[in-house]
């Protein structure tokens, strides 16, 4: 079922999932925390099939299909584990990534390359590297911890909180600031604009479709645009499930070589 962003938002607004009166009293940090929770911590775990379409500035498309598994390791905004498994294209099928997300330190990442039968830990000092060649960063998929930035509520409209965030450690990121439009009812960020030191928007995240799945408002279609080149990547989430009861041992190196049933 495809819906436009506007109609989705209207529908959500009419449904009145959250009390707007109470919300207006939230601080910027609270808004940031709730936005992170609703984007990345819905349910205790989750599974989705993702179609990634990378479109470059010439309009050439590359499609990749992957399955993403997620398991929360504790409370919201805490540690999480991700398992990313490639289905398509054929020559990278069974390639897998494992991410142990640690909001207060560097994440741990592993990579499995089936054609080389090789597991390697990826040591990266930051999470702002490309997510498998797309315009999304790892951090966009796994979530940026709210405490890494200072947040400022610049505007509260009828529908959105507008949050401006600046990094506490500017040396570690490529942006100077970002502005997020967070939907008041669902606390889903529906648009994020990343600005450079000149104040120009060079990267934009847009939510294009939201569905309520198992009671969780869920982004099922999002887009990251590289404003400099005009290229963009669209992620379409299909067969989203929550509470699938993913075991903790599934998110270990052992399962990189031997994909679990959950991704087959």
């Amino acid at each position: 079922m495809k819906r436009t962003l506007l109609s989705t938002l209207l529908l959500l607004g009419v449904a009145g999932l959250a009390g707007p009166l109470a919300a207006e009293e939230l601080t910027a940090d609270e808004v940031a925390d709730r936005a992170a929770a609703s984007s990345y911590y819905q349910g205790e775990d989750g599974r989705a099939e993702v179609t990634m379409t990378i479109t470059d500035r010439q309009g050439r498309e590359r499609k990749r299909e992957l399955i993403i598994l997620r398991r929360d390791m504790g409370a919201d905004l805490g540690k999480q584990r991700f398992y990313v498994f490639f289905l398509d294209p054929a020559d990278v099928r069974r390639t897998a990534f494992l991410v142990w997300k640690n909001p207060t330190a560097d994440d741990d990442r592993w990579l499995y390359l089936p054609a080389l039968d090789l597991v390697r830990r990826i040591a990266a000092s930051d999470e702002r590297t490309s997510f498998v060649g797309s315009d999304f960063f790892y951090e966009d998929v796994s979530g940026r911890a709210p405490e890494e930035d200072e947040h400022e509520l610049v505007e509260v409209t009828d529908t959105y909180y507008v949050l401006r965030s600046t990094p506490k450690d500017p040396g570690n990121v490529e942006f100077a600031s970002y502005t997020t439009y967070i939907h008041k009812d669902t606390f889903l960020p529906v648009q994020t604009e990343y600005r450079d030191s000149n104040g120009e928007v060079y990267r934009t995240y847009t939510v294009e479709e939201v569905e309520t799945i198992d009671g969780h408002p869920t982004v099922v279609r999002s887009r990251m645009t590289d404003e400099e080149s005009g290229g963009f990547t669209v992620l379409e989430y299909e067969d989203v499930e929550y509470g699938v009861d993913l075991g903790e041992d599934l998110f270990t190196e052992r399962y990189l070589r031997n994909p679990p049933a959950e991704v087959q």
Partner: protein
Amino acid sequence: MKSVADLGLKRPWFVIGFSSLLALLLLVLAAVPTLFPQLGGPLPALRVDTDPENMLAADEPARVFHREAKDRFDLHDQIVVGVLRPGTEEGVFTPEVLTHVYELVETAESLDGVVRSKILAPSTVDNIEQAGVGAVSFNWLMPAPPQTQAEADAVREKLLNLPMFEGSLIAPDGRSLLLYIPIESKDMSHRISQELLAKIDSFGDSGGEEYHITGLPVANDTFGVQMFIQMAISAPMAMVLIFVLLLLFFKKFRLVLSPMIVALLSVIITMGLLVVTGNTIHIMSSMIPIFIMPIAVLDSVHFLSEFYDRYPQYRDRGKTVRETLKSLWRPMLFTSLTTAAGFGSLVLAPIPPVQVFGLFVAIGVIVAWLLTILFIPAYIALMKESSLEGYGLRQEAGEGEEARGLLRVLSRVTYRRPRTIVAVAVVLLGLAAVGILRIQINDNPVKWFEPDHRIRVADQLLNERFAGTYPAYLNLRAEEADAFKDPELLRYLREMQDSLEASGNVGKTQSITDLVQTVYRELLGGGEEYFRVPDSSAAVAQTVLTYESSHRPDDVYHLVTPDFSEAALWFQLKSGDNQDMLEVVGEVEDYLAANPPPQALQPEWFGLTYINVVWQDKMVAGMLSALLSAFVVVLVLMVVLFRSFLWGLLAMVPLTVTIAVIYGIIGFIGKDYDMPVAVLSSLSLGLAVDYAIHFLARSRQKREKHASWGASVDAVFGEPARAIARNIIVVGVGFLPLLLAPLVPYQTVGYLISSILVVAGAATLLLLPALLTLLARRAFPAERSPSNPPSS
């Protein structure tokens, strides 16, 4: 003819008013949209074009392919910044210098027009390396300026360890850096490099490093600026010099002013037309003023020379003007037509800027001719008779016709030793033929700057240290998707690269293979034995996917298309000479023929260094056909003018000798046949035929007044030869300011024009009378009477 002369004499104000208003109108039409673009309106503003790509028409297949391929691999034109610290062991790898480099890159990232994500510098690239057992890291190679010498050394080691960067980003000796700053369009490069220079200036001398900015876009843009210096300095200087010379020859200030006005009006009208019709100021069209000016003066010099010599006879300016026009009417018309034909023939060269140049110089020549026959009589008519009192050649009537001084010697030699002169000419022609066979066709836009220009200096220093600053690309198209994941094809690419790199012309090559091998090596523990292509296409695909998880995933798609059906092989050449590029093209052809690739590949070149080769090629062929067709047109005109095939052929002798000798000399001294040299064939043709026409026409006239050719020779070497000699001096000196121009092509034109004048003058004043003496019986039917045998 008579009515034309009368128009100027009888209605001087009309002629002067009309031509001045026309020039003024065009000046305004060209200037207003340029100075006040906000007014809008249909007229184009003056545009400068320094893009060598425009040497090819927009729809030229090679250029269309170049653009498409640049898009296909998302490649940009680049400003290249070299950072050197000569004479030191650690080079630029000190905390202080690297801090400057870091800041410079930060500045570049903030500049408008810079493609930020594609900058290549230590702080913008990823380091792929081992990070302990079973771990590989993708981290910014220099995320922050190093604080200690050890950290600075580490930056060097990391760069040297990555084959993609050795020789391109870091010099192989590990002492210098090259930063690549891609820009959105070439015309921004001057501004951006100025902003970079401002940042560089703020560093002071504390780090002891030098910065050298180069790259073709910077060269081209700087070129545009120098072009205006040429037009603003050389052209006016040429005018001043010509004016001084005319004053020396013809004394009268007010009279001498008239050719200057004619020249100025011709230039304004022509350049105005050029701008108003939407043409650009290009390296070629910027030379239009300096070509038109001496040519415009040519006719006026003939006119004034005749007027100066005759005025004492009549003491009546109206009558002198009419008499002068009477004897000069046909030669002036035909010299203008032939010069216009010479330049007009350039329209046949398939290079748009050369076509525009040829067309507008031809227009300028015709404008100058019209102004000479209309404006100068009008101007003289407005002078008071009394102001001309005592004016003219100070001699008794009748003696003015006689040759004097050097010209008298010439007249004797040509009449007495015609066979020797012809023999010398034939020997010269033979030598010229040898020289012409040695001509090297070559060009290199960077060499358009003088050797001590900072761009040339940077070019030399950087190419000594790095693998080369001239980029060229080979697009290899396979038949199906994923072809460039095939390990066999990737290995083939590297073998081809090895062979090409060994040949000497190529400093470094880069392909998808290099990227795959580097990532594979680090995935397998960093040992050199793993610096190879993995064994299956899936393994290649997964290696590439690993790289795509870095900070710069798009780097892959500068080397291969997203469907892996086409690859770009990058070449870094140490020289931008067309000949060197052409050699590499030949080496690739040979390699592909001798070593068939495992899959069918279609090779096609692109990149600015290659584009230069394409237009050079077209220029040589184009110039040859232009020259040949101009030759035919001029010959026909000559036969018509002289109503004789023999005389027509004679008129072609000086230009044939001139062109042959000039190009022979170019062949012997080893000067490359480049763009300015190619264009000069037209000028040689125009100037040499001009002299021949005047000389032959006046010889005929004089012969009619004397009993025999032998008796006329002295008279021919009187006023007619004097006018030609004055012309050689005026035009020769008039082009001299070009030697002061800051760009080599202008200097080349300056030197060659002087040589052309000397050769054309010698061929006219020596060879023509010698030939006339030998052929007198055929040339002058009246000579057939036995009383006047030609002496030998």
